[in-house]
């Protein structure tokens, strides 16, 4: 097995008295795409928010290449090299595309490097170059998701957390997003992805976890995932299996 960039163990997070994560253990391999499946309310977003430091863990540990992230501020975690693309393709609607990218690099102060990275984002996402001076709120859903990803990349993360990047997007745009995910991964970024669209995820992810009611209930390779009866029914649709 290759080296792990992220190791989560015994992680518990609560909203008041409701425990959303009840001792989660998982690992994200360095240079790979790891995908987390699970029904709504399973605690996937809570896990992402806890890793990013926006929610406080009650118990457990989150190690980024051996360094403890629990207790660090969100700002500090960004500096450590973790960036989150939150769900619902969050962007700053009242700021221009360019300003959104600058916002993503808020923690950095190497002007030249930032300018170079903006240029790189424009090359990777040509639509963003065209829309550079437009307000982000006026972009289409797909363009906003591209911007959300580009914004997160502006902090030069080693680990990119993506929370349901395909949610509510047209199939063609979803395909685009997944193409970008595999490109980013090929360029060396480790990715931890929350996804409901298991079909698409199967094409890019190297490892899968399934989470239900705040606990990890499946842990395996894409091959093992495709073999699992329960997951078949819930996430891939039974029709696939019955087709010879």
């Amino acid at each position, binding site marked *: 097995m290759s080296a792990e960039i992220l190791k989560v163990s015994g992680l518990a997070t609560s909203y008041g008295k409701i425990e959303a994560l009840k001792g989660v253990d998982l690992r994200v391999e360095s240079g790979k795409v790891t995908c987390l499946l699970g029904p709504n309310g399973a605690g996937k977003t809570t896990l992402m928010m806890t890793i*990013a*430091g*926006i929610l406080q863990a009650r118990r457990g540990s989150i190690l980024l290449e051996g360094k403890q992230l629990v207790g660090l*501020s*969100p*700002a*500090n*975690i*960004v*500096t450590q090299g973790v*960036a*989150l693309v*939150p769900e619902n393709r*969050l*962007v*700053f*609607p*009242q*700021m*221009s595309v*360019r*300003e959104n990218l*600058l*916002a*993503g690099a*808020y*923690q950095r102060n190497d002007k030249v490097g930032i300018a170079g990275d903006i240029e790189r984002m424009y090359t990777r996402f040509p639509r963003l170059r065209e829309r550079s*001076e437009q*307000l982000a709120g*006026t972009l289409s859903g797909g363009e906003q998701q591209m911007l959300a990803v580009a*914004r*997160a990349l502006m*902090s030069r993360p080693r680990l990119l957390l993506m929370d349901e990047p395909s949610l509510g997007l047209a199939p063609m745009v979803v395909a685009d997003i997944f193409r970008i995910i595999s490109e980013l991964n090929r360029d060396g970024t480790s990715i931890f992805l929350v996804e409901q669209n298991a079909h698409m995820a199967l094409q890019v992810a190297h490892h899968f976890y399934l989470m239900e009611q705040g606990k990890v209930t499946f842990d395996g390779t894409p091959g093992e995932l495709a073999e699992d009866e329960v997951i078949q029914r819930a996430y891939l649709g039974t029709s696939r299996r019955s087709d010879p």
Partner: protein
Amino acid sequence: MDDHVVSVLSNIGVISFVALSAYLLLLTGEISFGQQAFFGIGAYAAAIATAMWGWPLAAGLMLGALAGASSALLVGLPTLRLHGLYFAVATLAFAEMIRILLELFHYQVAVDGELVGPNGTDGFGGIRYVFQNKIGAFEYMLLIYTLLATALAGLWLLERSRLGVAFRMIGGDETLAKTSGIAITRHRMIAAALAGALAGIGGGLYAHLTTYIEPRIFDIMLGVHALAYGLIGGLGTALGPLLGVLIDIGLLGSTRLFSGYRMIVFGGLVAVLLIFRPRGLLNEEMVHRIGSFWRRVWPTDPSQKSHGKT
């Protein structure tokens, strides 16, 4: 210039400070119903300094700004962790508390054979610095606008600074600002202190403009208006709240057009705008469009075209 015009313009200038104060907090996404308290604190502090302690006006105004900023910080400590409605209610409660404390505040000294100073509900009259120093109404208006221009220039610089970008990020989306690595509470404290200072200066100017202040001046009406000015005029630029003041005081308050019905027209205007244009007339989109138009008419060096963080 006609005395009436000078008086109206002076009022517009002074009230603009409270509007800017509320605007600054709106930028960071906080709705405060309590900025009138800092206006009041600034007014009392500046007036006490000049009328009772014999300080020069500039020092009095500085004290007003300082009092506004430090009390805003003090209130901010417990309240700035609250969100939305909770913060709005907390600021309102604080402002009412200050108003009632001012009603109980008696501190008078004999100046030239006459008692001067805050006298509870009977107010604080005889703030005559402007008259003793033979400053004309027109000159005083110039002073108000000089300071207002300074404040606007400061805000203009701020909005183009790293700090200003952070304020807009927090106002745009708090979670996203957090994920971009912004310390939310610390930035909100800075915004609150600056907003308190702005309101404090406005209060100091007001006290010396009218020579008379009383707790009733700083009740919720002023706070609601301060908030409404930004919402009407727009949150895209610091000129937005000024436009709001201009519409209200200049158009509704100073012409006999609506006389006694001003509040009804004003309230209706706020409601209509909140429905159809929730971020005001000069919203970000409008400012953005004016900006692009400007760049097309007066093309500048392309390297200067990039704005935001510089």
